[in-house]
């Protein structure tokens, strides 16, 4: 019975959290001083010599309809919630009309996912290895040095590191490009090469910061576990230090780290926002930024809603799976 009660309360809070998030996202852009439809009509009439007043009125109506800006704010809100839940369609983009928002997101998503998945996983792997060594061999001078380096790098914001890397590797030693430009298309060798080349610098800035965090948390975990009784027992049994580290300490310290990794992957959308903007990387971050600069309601709401649902989903799944992974935790 405890389990179903737990599941039900998790589901209810998931729904509520997503609902409140979506509501906030809906109302905030409505307070924008600029009216996107008027701005677009202005752009059109500026390009054409003359437009009939009647034509402008019909144009305004069509635009209002296709952007879901018709009726009272309440009607718009109900329509928005319905669209998000029933059709998952965010309508056309206002700035690059008539491309649908879903298509723009679908185009940008693989870039962000690729960049962040790769850099998160690399940081996780390096950070855990270094952290395990630093925690288990905490009296060795090199493990102290590794910890000191990660403590110095971790607190620095990732966009500051990005700026330092740009300074070092794009100006002083111009190895990498200043802003992303891609050659070729599809699965050609040329294209893949240019994608990797352009992604190294933004990825590096996030790997550096990420690694520091994983080192610190893994070090804390593993040095705590290394003092537990069963580790002492293994030592008395005469097992090698290496075996104790990999078979006794690692599995227990890895549990929370896996959970944290899952949570991090859920928050991937916001992860690289400023980095993407600084490097001109064509991902979700740059998309949100252009959407906001151009007062593109549909685009803003589409991207932020997606990110809210992803984070809420990740929290939900982690909460739910945790007792399966770690037997010490019970549903309550």
């Amino acid at each position, binding site marked *: 019975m405890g389990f179903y009660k737990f599941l039900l309360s998790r589901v209810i*809070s998931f729904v*509520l*959290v*997503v609902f*409140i*998030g979506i509501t*906030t*996202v809906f109302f*905030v*852009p409505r*307070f*924008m*001083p600029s009216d996107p439809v008027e701005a677009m009509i202005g752009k059109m009439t500026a390009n054409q010599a003359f437009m009939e007043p009647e034509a402008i009125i019909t144009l305004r109506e069509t635009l209002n309809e296709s952007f879901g800006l018709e009726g009272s704010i309440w009607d718009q809100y109900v329509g928005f919630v319905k669209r998000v839940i029933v059709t998952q369609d965010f309508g056309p983009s206002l700035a690059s009309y008539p491309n649908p928002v879903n298509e723009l997101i679908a185009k940008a998503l693989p870039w962000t996912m690729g960049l962040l998945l790769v850099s998160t996983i690399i940081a996780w792997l390096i950070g855990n290895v270094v952290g395990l060594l630093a925690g288990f061999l905490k009296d060795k001078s090199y493990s102290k040095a590794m910890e000191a380096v990660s*403590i*110095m790098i*971790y*607190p*620095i*914001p990732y*966009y*500051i590191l990005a*700026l*330092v890397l*740009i*300074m070092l590797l794009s*100006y002083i030693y111009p190895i990498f490009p200043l802003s992303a430009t891609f050659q070729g298309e599809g699965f050609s060798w040329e294209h893949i090469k240019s994608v990797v080349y352009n992604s190294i610098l933004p990825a590096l800035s996030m790997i550096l910061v990420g690694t520091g965090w994983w080192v610190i948390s893994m070090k804390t975990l593993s040095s705590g576990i290394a003092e537990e009784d069963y580790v002492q027992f293994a030592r008395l049994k005469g097992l090698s230090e290496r075996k104790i580290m990999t078979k006794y300490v690692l599995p227990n310290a890895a549990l929370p780290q896996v959970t944290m990794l899952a949570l991090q992957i859920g*928050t991937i*959308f*916001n992860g690289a*926002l*400023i980095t993407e*903007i*600084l490097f001109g990387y064509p991902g979700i971050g740059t998309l*949100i*930024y252009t959407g*906001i*600069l151009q007062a593109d309601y549909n685009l*803003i709401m589409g*991207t*932020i809603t997606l*990110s*809210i649902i992803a*984070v*809420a989903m990740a*929290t939900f799944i982690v909460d739910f799976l945790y007792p399966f992974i770690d037997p010490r935790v019970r549903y309550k």
Partner: protein
Amino acid sequence: MKHWNFRLKLGVFLLSIFIILGFIVPFFYQGNPIEWGTYLKNVKPNKEHIFGTTSLGQDTFWLLAKSIQNSFIIGIIVAFFATLIGVLLGLWAGFKGGIIDRIITVMTDSFIVIPSLPILILLGSLMQGKASLFMIAFVLIIFNWPWPARQLRSMALSLSERDFISTAIFSGQNTLKIIVKEIFPFVAGWSVANFVNTILVAIGSESGLAVIGMSSNEKATLGTMIYWANQHQAMLSERWWWIGSPVVAIALIFIALFLVMTGYQQYSALRRGK
């Protein structure tokens, strides 16, 4: 000073350098450090201008001092109010339980789930780079109270099971008094660490926004300094003192705050005899 560890010492030392730079050094400067054209433009660091001057004709050193001041003011205001609101709501929720707890929990969870950075960028663009520093601080408070609230709720949950709390309830004390007098002393150490951490987060968010031109562009903060330097191609034209000084300052301030936070945690653990 007995339990002061190396981290705490180094952190406090670094931090005090920046506090002096931000809050005492500006007194020695007559005039407005952000005013354009006060000096010759693009002067390299020399005796008169130890950090050189910017392409806008400001002295980089005085501008940096003023920027550090403003960044710290934002950080401290946000950290104070976010911690205060978070601690009170979190303790209240954990202690009272029931419907109040449910409402506060759902609110904190929703605010944690909403990605704050895109919304901050959105609000920044709403105000078109002309927001006042207090407006930015206000928005940052809204996004930073849920973390302490969530943590302290769980602390209050376990604390409220203790005997002395029941004694306090049965002796008829009111809730606010119990929270402030009986429960708060137990979480005070954690709140200090959280306060320092929130300063760090707030300075980071503001400068992040400012770097892309979404904060108070006309005010001097570390982030807007980077923004203007970027706008004037400081890197391309090798005016490294202009872009370099705020970048290095932010990095060092963050390291200092982090050292103080973790050092303080070690310090209070030692004082408790662990």
